[in-house]
């Protein structure tokens, strides 16, 4: 009897405790990467499962999961029936051999011959028009050439022109319709290059954590559906499929249709598409970094205490910070670390993202290590080799400036390394490394990475960050 009671009690405790126990363990481990994934999301639909799906034969498992999906409702059936004529698959082809390198989706806007898709679907054509070209395939298997008209790198949108007109099903309203949370949305596209599909989900508000607004769509979006439309039951486009959370279940993101309207207006006003999109992309990235740095520095950085040191961080909707500690009893030294990432990365190409801001602080201390031995340890930790490979053709080699500097209250060793983008003039990656030089058994080491900024803004961030370091009175 007693045992049974104890067993029952234990069960209750276990049941009550498990969600609490599970919850805190997740953020530091997965969250540290996950938001970066979501944000680096453009590459995500394309990025990881390559920009849209490798045409491989589905394995038995995959087919099974497909079958397991809930049957679309009759509304979805009707919708797909009327939408299919305007739905396109967009394929990037290598000019030599015309083999496809990536595939995505797109849709004809109204009755025009313009189609909307994601920038990341056509990024290869935009960056390397000499190597890549594109074609579309519609639901009847007809193909035709695709001409790139305009790109919006920041919101991940592109407009292309094809040699046929839409039936007028997909309406891009002048002023976007108001969406209510829970309202059903239908997402269309060609997932994993398996065939055209429609998936049903619900609108769930605007993602505030991302630098540019994204709609949350609680429904399945898979690689290859990028660039496809998500529409209301009446055929009004609510957003363009763009990304999903890899660690989530049916947590997907859409580009709000308002940005698509802006881009379409731009296409209407331009006489001819630009011959080279690289300078245009460079300008958009410059605009992005301007907004990003302004947002980062619009108020003074927050100072947080790490041991006796005061370290600058920024905590706002777009910047997320995580902490981690290696404190162990009897260890020769201990490390507390804090890292913050601003969710502002912009997809440029499969291998290049820009507009990141990341900062890390490490507080290393030891009670038992002699000063020289401790110095040798922290010297090793201060050595950073991974500023990206020097053979990277997109960036120049790093140039570094190093100095012993003194902020108001703290002497520091500061190293700033800068690399320039080769294909986008005026954009640079800044890395600032600092190490405190005030104590023989404690060391504060920090790293700030700002990528894709103008030199001016890189200096601004470096100055603000470096100048904020300090030491509080207490030991």
């Amino acid at each position, binding site marked *: 009897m007693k045992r049974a009671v104890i067993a029952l009690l234990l069960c209750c405790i276990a049941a009550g405790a498990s969600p609490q126990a599970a919850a805190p363990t997740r953020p530091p481990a997965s969250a540290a990467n996950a938001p970066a994934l979501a944000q680096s999301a453009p590459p995500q639909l394309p990025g990881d499962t390559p920009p849209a799906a490798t045409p491989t034969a589905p394995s038995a498992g995959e087919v099974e999961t497909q079958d397991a999906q809930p049957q679309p409702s009759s509304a979805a059936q009707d919708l797909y029936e009327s939408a299919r004529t305007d739905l396109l698959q967009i394929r990037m082809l290598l000019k030599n051999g015309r083999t496809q390198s990536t595939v995505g989706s797109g849709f004809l806007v109204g009755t025009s011959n313009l189609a909307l898709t994601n920038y990341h679907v056509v990024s290869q054509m935009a960056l390397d028009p000499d190597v890549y070209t594109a074609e579309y395939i519609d639901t009847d298997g007809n193909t035709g050439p695709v001409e790139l008209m305009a790109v919006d790198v920041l919101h991940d949108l592109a407009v292309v022109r094809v040699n046929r007109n839409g039936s007028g099903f997909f309406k891009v309203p002048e002023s976007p319709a108001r969406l209510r949370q829970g309202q059903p949305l239908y997402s269309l596209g060609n997932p994993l290059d398996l065939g055209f599909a429609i998936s049903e989900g619900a609108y769930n508000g605007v993602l505030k954590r991302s630098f540019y607004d994204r709609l949350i769509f609680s429904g399945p979006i898979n690689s290859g559906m990028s660039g496809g439309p998500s529409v209301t039951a009446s055929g009004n486009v609510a957003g363009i499929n763009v990304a999903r959370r890899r660690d989530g279940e049916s947590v997907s993101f859409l580009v709000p249709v308002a940005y698509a309207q802006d881009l379409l207006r731009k296409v209407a006003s331009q006489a001819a598409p630009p011959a080279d999109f690289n300078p245009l992309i460079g300008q958009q990235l410059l605009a992005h970094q301007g907004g990003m740095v302004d947002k980062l520095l619009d108020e003074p950085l927050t100072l947080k205490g790490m041991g006796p040191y005061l370290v600058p961080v920024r905590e706002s909707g777009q910047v997320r910070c995580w902490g981690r500690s290696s404190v162990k009893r*009897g*260890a*020769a*030294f201990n490390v507390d670390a804090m890292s913050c990432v601003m969710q502002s990365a912009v997809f440029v190409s499969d291998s290049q993202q820009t507009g990141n801001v990341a900062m890390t602080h490490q507080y290393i201390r030891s009670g*038992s290590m002699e*000063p*020289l*031995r*401790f*110095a*040798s*340890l*922290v*010297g*090793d930790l*201060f*050595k*950073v*080799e991974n*500023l990206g490979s*020097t053979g990277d053709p997109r960036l*120049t*080699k*790093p*140039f*570094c*400036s*190093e*100095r*012993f*500097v*003194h*902020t108001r209250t703290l*002497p*520091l*060793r*500061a*190293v*700033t*390394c*800068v*690399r*320039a983008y*080769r294909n986008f*003039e005026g954009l*640079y990656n800044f890395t600032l*490394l600092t*190490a405190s*030089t*005030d*104590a*023989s058994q404690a*060391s504060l080491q920090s790293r700030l990475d700002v990528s894709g900024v103008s*030199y001016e803004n890189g*200096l601004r961030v*470096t*100055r603000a960050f*470096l*100048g904020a370091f300090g030491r509080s009175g207490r030991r």
Partner: protein
Amino acid sequence: MNTLAKAQADAPAALPSAPSADLPIDLPLSAPWTVETLARNGEVLQRQRVATLPIRMGRAYDNDVIVDDDYAAPHHALVDATLDGKLLLRDLGTRNGIVHKGRCVKELHLDGDTVVRMGHTTLRIRSAAHPVPPELTDRTMHGWEGVLPGAAGVLLTALTALLAAWLLDRNNIELQRYVQWPAAAVGAGLLWSGLWAFGNRLFGRRARLGRHYFIFGLALAALLGVRLAASVVAYAWSLEWVTAYASHAAVVTVAVMIYFHLATVTPQLRRRLRIVCAVLGLVASILIVAGNQQQHGRMADELYMSLLLPPELRASPDAPVAVYINQVGAMKKEIDAERKGNAGE
């Protein structure tokens, strides 16, 4: 061999003038003559003393100098004095002949430095009056040979390894590490100096293991010492180039070590060895620079000075943040030039 040479040397004293009675007395050639068999590098392998002229040479046992060489004829050559007082070597009609400076000769005038080859045997003949250079000044510290320098070398090696083990220890101090490191270093030193001692025994007369070990120990200590001293100097006065090119100091240390090893083996070639080691060091340094340039696009060993030392070791003043930011700002020109330069390619 020595005894044989002596026995021959004794004989000629009794009959010095018998065969050469018709020669002038004040001849520069003076008995006894020494026939020296040479190694390829010019070293004397064997000496035979002959009291009188002519000297008969060959493989047969009735010769004055027996040449143990299958490629020499039983009666290969004869050395006699000419009327004008020089030595003349004559071939006795052999198949392989006498070779001088790569050419086959029938007869040849000899002086003390003429080297000829018979079959596979290289030799020269010197008279008793042949001049020799004065003795070398003996700088060898004979008290510093053998066990004493060897022990000092082992001690230096072990201490250096201990210091390195301590500096690189990231954990709480445990005895095992501080036994393993010195043991490994002493073992490596034994291997290194053993190889040099082997070479020394081969090319010199003695192994001199102790001395080679001392050189190793000293070099190891110097490697660590130079590194530490460079670190302290660079950190104290903010001289980043000192650590950026620290590998060249190590190259110099190793070159000096190899010079001392070589000079221990062949002390008479010191001047030449100095040049050889300097050239080797230079080549190593150039290779390091070229490797850095190719791998990292810079000549220095490191991107920046990652060294951190206790604050007491800082000597130069720190810069204010604004000055540093200006310094970073000034870098823009360089980067843009690099970007343009490579874009043009």
